[in-house]
């Protein structure tokens, strides 16, 4: 397949699909900037929306300045931009997630269902290795972890179906952070007072997976589930 062409029927993600996902996620982060700031104001320091917006804007610029030749290259450009340019907890954590995903799909020209699951799992492992958070600590891991499990369980149904399952699971994980008492990140300084608020990082993760799901379902159209 020629580079830049979407293999819609097979449900494979191309380099252009990955770039498109990044561009769309940047737009979604920008439109949810204030919401993410407000969530962070309640249990953190009111900068998560600003951090993500700054990072994703820079990532889109970096992809435009130096168009990637493979999905792995696209992911790596996002990773290094987030790691080097964002700061805060979210910069290195999301950056490491994208970096590990990139390494995991290093040699692939397009991403099939197994590659997507491998990439998502590597991303989760990367951010756990940096942040040392476990499920239940009220962090983005609470959205990533169920998303990876759901994606793996649906791998046989094709890319669109598996990312849709991941997005649903991430949203459920995001909502489940509300009653939790934070044990990692700034929210942990609040102790019991962190309960009753949804975690901002879990929210930005759920938004990311929803972008992937929406894009994949558009690209696959009625072929979802036939990969």
């Amino acid at each position: 397949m020629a580079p830049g062409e979407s293999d819609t029927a097979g449900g494979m993600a191309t380099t252009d699909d990955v770039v498109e996902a990044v561009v769309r996620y940047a737009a979604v982060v920008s439109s949810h900037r204030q919401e993410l700031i407000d969530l962070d104001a309640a249990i953190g320091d009111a900068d998560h929306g600003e951090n993500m917006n700054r990072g994703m804007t820079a990532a889109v610029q970096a992809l435009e300045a130096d168009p990637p030749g493979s999905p792995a290259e696209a992911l790596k450009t996002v990773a290094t931009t987030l790691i080097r340019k964002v700061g805060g907890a979210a910069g290195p954590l999301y950056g490491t997630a994208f970096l590990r995903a990139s390494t995991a799909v290093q040699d692939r020209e397009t991403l099939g269902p197994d590659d997507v699951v491998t990439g998502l799992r590597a991303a989760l492992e990367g951010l756990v290795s940096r942040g040392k958070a476990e499920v239940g600590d009220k962090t983005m891991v609470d959205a990533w972890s169920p998303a990876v499990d759901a994606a793996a369980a649906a791998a046989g149904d094709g890319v669109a179906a598996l990312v849709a399952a991941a997005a649903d699971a991430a949203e459920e994980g995001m909502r489940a952070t509300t009653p939790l008492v934070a044990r990692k990140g700034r929210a942990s300084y609040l102790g019991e007072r962190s309960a009753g608020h949804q975690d901002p990082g879990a929210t930005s993760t759920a938004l990311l997976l929803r972008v992937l799901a929406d894009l994949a379902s558009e690209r696959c159209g009625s072929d979802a589930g036939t990969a």
Partner: protein
Amino acid sequence: MKKIINDPENVVEESLRGMAMAHADLLEVHLDPHYIVRAGGPDEGKVAVVSGGGAGHEPLHGGFVGYGMLHAACPGAVFTSPTPDQVEAATKAVDGGAGVLHIVKNYTGDVLNFETAAELAAAEGSQVEAVVINDDVAVKDSLYTAGRRGVGGTVLAEKIVGAAAERGDDLASVTSLCERVNANVRSMGLALTSCTVPHAGKPTFELGEDEVEVGIGIHGEPGRERLPIEPADALVDRLLNPVLEDLPFESGSQVLLFVNGMGGTPLIELYLAYARAEEVLRERGISVQRRLVGNYITSLEMQGMSVTLLRLDDEMTELWDAPVHTPALRWGR
């Protein structure tokens, strides 16, 4: 939001430009990426001390760059840790061949970004050590949490450790001294008002006219509990008691007492609070050897204060007294 700013986007950069002009004799300010170093290039053969963190805590850290204190400071966006490329650039700029110590406040973002920067700088040949400051007793520490925050103790560590580097101590000694300061310092803070992060546009939390937030950090984050306002003496006791119990500081201890304003509290109130704090210590048989009162580690325009106690030994006292010449602290030179 009412602030003396042009555009929330450019607050840090425009402020850095002003610092560069106001302190051209002391500082060299870089804007791409943002970092501040001493004027006059690296100190050959001496350990360089680098710190950094979100902007909004001024004078910390940039105001402490200069003779006898920091060699470089990296300000992130407001309340956001700096990025690795800033820290890496600052580290390389001040490395005089004897190694670089990073003094990092314990926040997940700061720790992760300084770690990455240290790896990058080490890959290019710099020898880098890091000490993480975690002096805030308001945070319950445990293996399973992010641990205690770095607050007022950071200022004292930067002064004392900077003096050791200035006199020519090697990297291992400077690092272990910094760890010793951290092990002997404790802090706690309270807020009378919240603060407004420029890009957020509204106060981070709402606090009633008659309420105080106790156990705050330095990012306008809510504290551990909200209480009705009390007279100053009672507020000072609320901060001092947990600090005293934590180390613990006991009768006969020699200490440095630091009463810090959060940015919006006038000195008249800080001195009033200071008097109570020193009296309480005297009653307990704790000897206050050195003192610092003022707005040194702030949370933008927040009204409030923190109390920091450092148990001194002779070496720390001598290094505290050593000459320092920075925009925000200057004596003996």
